[in-house]
């Protein structure tokens, strides 16, 4: 009698589990990747002139591991917007037309959505993940002991720079999304964007390892503010003045990039090709 409802029961359970399942898969993939990096860095420091206790470009082995772990958490919590895919979908399905006649800004809609998802992610995952990561790193001796008033100042600046990072990521996603007006497909542009950001933001490797000239240029670009700087602020590698400068630079870039996005959009909107209706 009730048997015929079993598939629905199962479907409901699976639906609810999906999100949790995705997080689990993410965790396994990430642990494998982080482990690979830990082995690589272990080999690098062991092979360096000063041995495992050496400091390379201002990073000790322990700090480097803390950096790898914290950037991984940071990227997961901060970069979760689908702005580019939404724009691409709007173009391919033709719904872009509806958005263009609505009395709200297309850009504003995405900025708000991204902030909403940032808040959820920060509370749902950020809080437990950062706490766990910081406690574990501290417990294993990978982070120095915290001095409390100073830590809270850094924590505040970290949150602020995290917010800037998320906004920067959103506006860059938006710019690449608008470029889809020209290419009508997001696949290639998206991978180009992800590569650029992960390399130039110091996610792949801290910018301190880059050659001097490139490093100087990049220190004035918006990318470092998207991953490296917030994490280094949290690790208290920057003093308060340097941290403040990083936040100010990010804020300035947000303004510049928003203007650029506006210009680009007004040009692209005249080119729009709608593929479906």
């Amino acid at each position: 009698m009730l048997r015929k409802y079993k598939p629905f029961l199962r479907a409901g359970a699976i639906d609810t589990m999906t999100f949790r399942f995705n997080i689990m898969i993410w965790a396994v993939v990430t642990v494998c990747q982080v482990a690979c990096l830990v082995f690589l860095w272990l080999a690098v420091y062991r092979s360096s002139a000063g041995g495992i206790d050496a400091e390379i470009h201002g990073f000790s082995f322990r700090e480097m591991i803390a950096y790898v772990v914290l950037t991984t958490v940071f990227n997961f919590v901060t970069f979760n917007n689908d702005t580019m895919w939404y724009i691409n979908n709007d173009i391919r399905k033709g719904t872009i037309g509806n958005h263009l006649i609505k009395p709200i800004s297309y850009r504003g809609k995405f900025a708000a959505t991204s902030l909403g998802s940032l808040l959820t992610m920060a509370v749902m995952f950020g809080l437990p993940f950062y706490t766990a990561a910081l406690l574990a790193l501290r417990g294993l001796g990978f982070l120095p002991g915290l001095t409390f008033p100073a830590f809270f100042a850094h924590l505040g600046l970290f949150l602020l720079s995290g917010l800037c990072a998320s906004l920067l990521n959103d506006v860059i996603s938006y710019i690449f999304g608008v470029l889809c007006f020209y290419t009508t497909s997001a696949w290639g542009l998206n991978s180009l964007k992800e590569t650029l950001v992960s390399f130039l933001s110091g996610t792949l490797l801290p910018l301190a390892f880059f050659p001097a000239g490139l490093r100087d240029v990049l220190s004035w670009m918006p990318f470092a503010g998207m991953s490296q700087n917030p994490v280094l602020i949290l690790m208290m590698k920057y003093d308060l003045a340097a941290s403040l400068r990083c936040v100010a630079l990010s804020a300035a870039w947000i303004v510049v990039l928003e203007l650029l996005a506006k210009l680009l959009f007004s040009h692209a909107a005249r080119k729009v090709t709608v593929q479906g209706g």
Partner: protein
Amino acid sequence: MRYVHLYFTCIKRSMISRLEYKKDTLVALSSFFFSNLCSLAALYFILQSIPALAGYSLYEVGFFYGFSMLPIALDHLFSDELWLVAYRRVKDGDMDMHFLRPVPVLFQVFAETFQPEGFGELILGAALIAVCASNLTVAVTFGSVAVLFVGALFGAVIITSLKVAIAALAFIFKRSGPLLQIIYNFSTYAKYPLAIYPAFIRAFLIFVLPFGLFISLPVDTLLYGKHDPWLLCGAIIGCAAVFFALAVWVWTACERRYESTGS
């Protein structure tokens, strides 16, 4: 012969549909190239700050990295559709059409896409090998070069077989993409010499997921003559045969349990 003809007809059709998005294809090609270049640059910057990595010089590590790209690129050229099968196509119910045609489903899946991005990887890998090899002095023997070819070719067979077997699980579980992602990501480990890993990971990369067997060991053989080349050739080919047979077996078994999800 009929299948060769059929393969090219299908691929031609898929290329035409791909060219619908010319600009995007170009961007995708260059982004792929660029992403490999970035990881390489990162590795180069790291190696600049130390004398050698676990005893391997800059050019030797570069050689490893370049060589690891070859089997991965070869697999990438031909079997990209398996990702879609594992992630989406079974779940969305659009595999049905393949079951109605008088050609094996596995063949149709392979004939669905040809990924020219793979060429970018192949060229970059080959260029890296050429640059690094010209800066290394190695005693090249016929055997050590043969083992590189065997490693690249049969390594690609092993990777593709792994992908086939795991993608086939989607016929039962509707979606096996995430699992495929986890397994495939272990290929990153094989980009560096095995010497940097602890013993259990080394064993894992040789005996369980044999990325190390067909990437690291052949390179070690060329650079240091660490292993007997012909024995290694035999091991790689044998391993590829086992993986291939297993993959076909798993695919056929899972295919029989396919149930359409509707649409």
